[in-house]
């Protein structure tokens, strides 16, 4: 049923691994954990295409965890917003593909992000703008779990509930790991669902790698009025590459050529398995 999406997801994962290997730097772990979420949004959910980027009556996506730029670039390439060959320029001098997303350089990038906590705050602003204009736009954002430690996130969450932004949907890429290790060892963020609930949000918890659950969550979100929705997506850091999975060490390091080939091989085998 989701074969086409699964195939896009594998292409996106392969490009994430390839581009970070080529640039010799970047963040593979948290890029790979968000693949299904971005794939579903760009291929099934969002009203956004190359021709409506200048229109206000479209959907918006803001990558609040900006260090996962490779998953955004690879998805934008897969969806035809940027050319695939550009992916290999990641982080190089003169490239449109900056280390963290730069809206000045790529039209399809709605907001420049990278400094954690700011994307969700920007998303609240976009959502208020759309409310003022009575526009039929939904604003989607993807937060990291470690990112929730930023104070600004909670200022933004408070304001989204206060202004009853039911046109705002936040995903949490809950892979449980950050640079220094487990979230709960570095700075505990549990209980996530209760925290969001007490801040006035509609909370849905899912497996963030299951397209069916993503679909169901987004359908139920549409029925919620007067409240913003958060989808807490349980994910696996480094998902799809066996030696990267659940390993904080792959937060911000690039694979070697040998590791890349191993990973690409695994991903190609996965395609055979699911098709």
């Amino acid at each position, binding site marked *: 049923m989701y074969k086409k999406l699964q195939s896009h997801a594998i292409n996106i994962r392969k490009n994430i691994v390839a581009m970070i290997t080529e640039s010799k730097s970047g963040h593979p772990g948290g890029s790979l954990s968000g693949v299904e979420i971005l794939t579903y949004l760009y291929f099934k959910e969002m009203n956004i295409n190359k021709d409506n980027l200048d229109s*206000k009556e479209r959907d918006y996506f803001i990558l609040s965890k900006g260090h996962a730029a490779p998953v955004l670039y690879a998805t934008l390439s897969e969806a035809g917003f940027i050319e695939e060959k550009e992916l290999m320029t990641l982080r190089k001098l003169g490239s449109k593909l900056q280390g963290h997303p*730069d*809206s*000045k350089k790529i039209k399809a990038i*709605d*907001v*420049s992000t*990278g*400094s954690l*906590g*700011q994307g969700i*705050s*920007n*998303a*609240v*602003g*976009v*959502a*208020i*703008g*759309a409310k*003022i*204009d009575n526009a039929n736009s939904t604003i989607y954002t993807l937060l990291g779990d470690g990112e929730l430690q930023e*104070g*600004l996130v909670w*200022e*933004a969450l*408070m*304001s989204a509930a*206060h*202004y009853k932004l039911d046109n705002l949907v936040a995903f949490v890429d809950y892979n449980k790991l950050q640079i220094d290790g487990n979230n709960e060892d570095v700075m505990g963020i549990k209980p996530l669902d209760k925290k969001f609930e007490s801040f006035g949000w509609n909370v849905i918890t899912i497996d963030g790698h299951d397209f069916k659950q993503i679909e169901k969550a987004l359908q139920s979100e549409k029925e919620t009025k007067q409240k913003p929705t958060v989808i807490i997506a349980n994910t696996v850091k480094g998902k799809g590459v066996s030696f990267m999975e659940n390993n904080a060490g792959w937060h911000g390091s690039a694979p070697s050529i040998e590791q890349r080939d191993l990973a690409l091989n695994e991903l190609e085998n996965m395609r055979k398995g699911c098709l």
Partner: protein
Amino acid sequence: MGLATREAYGKALVELGKENENIVVLDADLSKSTKTADFAKEYPNRFINAGIAEQNLLGMSAGLARYGKVPFASTFAVFATGRAFEIIRNSICYPKANVKIAATHAGITVGEDGGSHQSIEDIAIMNSLPNMSLLVPADAKETNEIIKYAAKHVGPVYIRLGRLNSEDIFGDDYKFEYGKGVCLKEGDDCTIISTGLMSAMAKNACETLKEQGINVRLIHMPTIKPIDREIIEKAAKETKFILTCEEHSVIGGLGQIVASVTSETVPTKVIKLGINDVFGESATPKELLQKHGLSSENIVNIIKANI
């Protein structure tokens, strides 16, 4: 005495709101002090209170600008540029977001609230950011002009406003020109370059000095960034020295900006009158100005000692 620049700001916003439906105004629980409450009353659906959360105030403003709105965000200068600095940097200046930051209660004339609330470093901080324009009006008329200009300017603008009533120096026919200094008085003995409420004091000082036979050129500088290099270089060439006057630290303020222009092309003596690398304290605005030598009398004394 005329209106405080913050009051002129509040009035200008209401006028702008009528002309331009894209104007939205944000505040952080200080709308009665920053005077955005007038706009909130007139256009409640275009006023957003962030509560006491300055980072989100500026973050939401960036999002509204992304959506095509023209947000004016207000709070005290010390919180806007201090608490929310990195949001201004990464969410506003880096992507060149069309956000206007109208920061009130700048400088020591905040008065009784004391040093914690007196911004002496906001010009230095904002001037260091690429893509930022930095404007400091001297009186109510100029504030009105600057607010209307800022709404048309595409890109980030920081407008520095004061709490204290300021002396009117401009007539109804005054037109603000972006990036240009304003020669308030010709003269060839020496030059005063001033900004904000110091321009009125400098004007009075120049009149006193004229009576004593000293002919001072007075340049008011409403645009701090981009700075008017030409008018500074001309003054440096044609007059003996320059005195800068500002209600801001002498570190990173107008004085250093002027000195950095002259040092490159027309090396000239630049004397800086401002806050001498100390924090403020509680007192009446008048007492504080006096204590820091920000007065017409002190300007007269400095000029006479150096001529």
